[in-house]
C-alpha cells in the first residue's frame, strides 16, 4: 500500500495505482473532494495502454516519495504515473500547473471547429466541460482551422474528423474489443487523422463502443434518430437479455416520449462506460418493447448537462473568437443531413 496526498487530501491505495486512479478514489470517497481529480481526455480505464497522449491530466509531483522526496522536474501525466509511498501531488493547488494545463486545453481547442451548436455531442462533450473549466475567454488562434469532410464509415457510425482530438481511444477499442481493427491513425503531426484509409466500413460486433469512448463529437451514431439535443431527451437505465456472450445488455435508453432515440452504454461518474455493449443492442433495438426499463438515470457526471450552467452563448464565447454565425452553421447542418 502507498499513501499519497493530492491537493492536501490523503488516501492509501494499493501499490501500482496511478495518480489519476488515486485521485478518483478520493473523489468517490467524498464528493466535496472532487477538485483533486485531474481531467482525463484520453485515458480510459477499461482500455489497455490508453492514456498519456492528451496531456490534460498532468499534475505536479511536489514530493516524489518518502524515500526520495525530490520533486519531479516536469509535470507528469497522472494517468500513466504510479504513486509512491509518501508522494505529494498538486492538481489545482499549484499555479504553474494550472497554467500549464490551461495551455494544453488551449492547444486542444485551436484547431477544434466552431460547431458546438450543431454538434450531436453538445451537452455531453468532455472537451466542452474542459474548456469551460480550464479555457481562456477567447482563443488567440487566428489562423484557418484544420477541416475535414465528415465521412460515413459503414451505416452506423459517422466520423467528423474535424472534431477529433486524437485521443486514440477508438483505436484501442478497435484493437481490443473487435476481432480486427480496420481503422487507425494515418499521417503524422497535425495532419494525422483517424481513417480507414480506403472507405472501409467498420462492421464488427463491438465497433459501436467507439462512439461511447469518443470524448468529443467525432464519432457519432448514425442511427440516433431525429438527432436531438441531449438535454431534451430523457435517459433511462434499461436491459435486455442479449444473446451475445460478451454483452450483458445493460444500457441507457435516450427517450423522447416512448420513442427510443438512441442506445448507449452506461457511463460512470468519470464518463467511462461500465461495460461495453454489442452493436445489436446499440443499433438495432430501437423499440421500447425490446427493453426492461429500470428507471430514470441519475446523471452524476461532472458535466455541463447536470450542473445547470449550460449556456450556449457563454460556451460559444469560450470556444471561439470571433463568434461564428450560428444560424448559418445550423443551416449548413440541415443541408448536410438531408
Amino acid at each position, binding site marked *: 500500500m502507498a499513501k499519497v496526498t493530492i491537493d492536501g487530501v490523503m488516501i492509501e491505495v494499493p501499490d501500482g495505482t496511478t495518480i489519476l486512479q488515486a485521485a478518483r478514489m478520493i473523489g468517490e470517497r467524498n464528493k466535496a473532494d472532487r477538485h483533486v481529480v485531474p481531467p482525463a481526455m484520453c485515458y480510459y480505464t477499461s482500455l489497455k495502454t490508453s492514456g498519456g497522449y492528451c496531456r490534460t491530466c498532468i499534475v505536479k509531483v511536489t514530493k516524489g516519495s518518502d524515500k526520495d522526496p525530490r520533486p519531479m522536474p516536469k509535470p507528469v501525466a497522472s494517468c500513466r504515473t504510479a504513486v509512491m509511498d509518501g508522494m505529494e501531488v498538486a492538481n489545482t493547488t499549484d499555479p504553474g500547473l494550472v497554467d500549464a494545463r490551461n495551455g494544453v486545453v488551449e492547444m486542444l481547442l485551436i484547431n477544434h471547429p466552431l460547431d458546438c451548436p450543431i454538434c450531436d455531442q453538445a451537452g455531453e462533450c468532455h472537451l466542452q466541460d474542459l474548456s469551460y473549466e480550464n479555457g481562456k475567454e477567447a482563443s488567440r488562434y487566428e489562423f484557418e482551422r484544420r477541416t475535414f469532410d465528415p465521412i460515413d464509415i459503414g451505416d452506423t457510425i459517422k466520423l467528423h474528423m474535424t472534431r477529433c482530438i486524437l485521443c486514440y481511444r477508438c483505436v484501442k477499442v478497435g484493437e481490443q474489443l473487435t476481432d480486427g481493427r480496420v481503422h487507425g491513425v494515418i499521417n503524422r503531426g497535425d495532419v494525422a487523422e483517424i481513417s480507414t*484509409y480506403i*472507405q*472501409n466500413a467498420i462492421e464488427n460486433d463491438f465497433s459501436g463502443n467507439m462512439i461511447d469512448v469518443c470524448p468529443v463529437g467525432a464519432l457519432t451514431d448514425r442511427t440516433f434518430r431525429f438527432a436531438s439535443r441531449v438535454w431534451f431527451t430523457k435517459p433511462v437505465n434499461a436491459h435486455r437479455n442479449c444473446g451475445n456472450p460478451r454483452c450483458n445488455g445493460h444500457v441507457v435508453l435516450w427517450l423522447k416520449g416512448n420513442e427510443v432515440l438512441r442506445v448507449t452504454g452506461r457511463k460512470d461518474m468519470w464518463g467511462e462506460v461500465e461495460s461495453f455493449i454489442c452493436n445489436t443492442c446499440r443499433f438495432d433495438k430501437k423499440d421500447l418493447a425490446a427493453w426492461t426499463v429500470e428507471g430514470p438515470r441519475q446523471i452524476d457526471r461532472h458535466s455541463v448537462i447536470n450542473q445547470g450552467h449550460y449556456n450556449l452563448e457563454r460556451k460559444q464565447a469560450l470556444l471561439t473568437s470571433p463568434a461564428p454565425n450560428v444560424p448559418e452553421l445550423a443551416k449548413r447542418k440541415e443541408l448536410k443531413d438531408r
Partner: protein
Amino acid sequence: MSARTRPITTTEGTKPFSFSEAGLAECKALMARYPEGRSKSALIPILHVAQAENDGWLSVNAMDAVAQVMGLRHIEVYEVASFYSMFNLHPVGTYVLDVCRTTPCMLRGSDDLITHLEKKLGIHAGETTKDGMFTLKGVECLGSCGTAPMLQCGAQFHEDLTIEKADALIDQLRARNSRTNYTDR
C-alpha cells in the same frame, strides 16, 4: 511532403500491383531476419521494395500486396506508410529531387536553389512536371550540411551545389531519362 497532403485512398485508376519474383524473394528474406513472431519488423524495408517496384510511389494496391505478403491488416500498412515522409502516396516523376531546405542548408543558400529549381522546372516544391520527368520535394536535413546546399536524387547525394551545377544535373538527368530509385544497387 507525402505526409502532408492527403493520400490517394482509392484503387480507382491505379495499376494492379504484384511483386516481381526477385522482389518477393527479398521480402521473404527480410521477414526471416527477425526473431520468431516479429516479422512485422520487416514492414518498412518491404515498403521500400514495393515503392521501387511501383514507379516510386505506394498505391493502395501496392500496400495491399504488402499486407498480403506479410499477413498484416491493411490498416497497419496504411498507418505506417503514411507516417514516413519517404513513402510517396501520390505518383511521382521519373526523378524525385529531394532538396534540403533545413536551416543549416538555408544558411548556405538552399532558398535560392529551391527558387531556381522551381522556376526552371515550372513547378512548386511538392509537384511533378507535366511531362512526368521531375518531382521536386522539399525535405529536411539530409546530413550533408557541411556540403550544402544539396539535393538527393535516388541514392545519390549531389552536394556543394551551385545554380550552374544544378542546371547541369537537370540536363544530364533529362538526357538519361530512366527512373532512379534510392534502392538501386
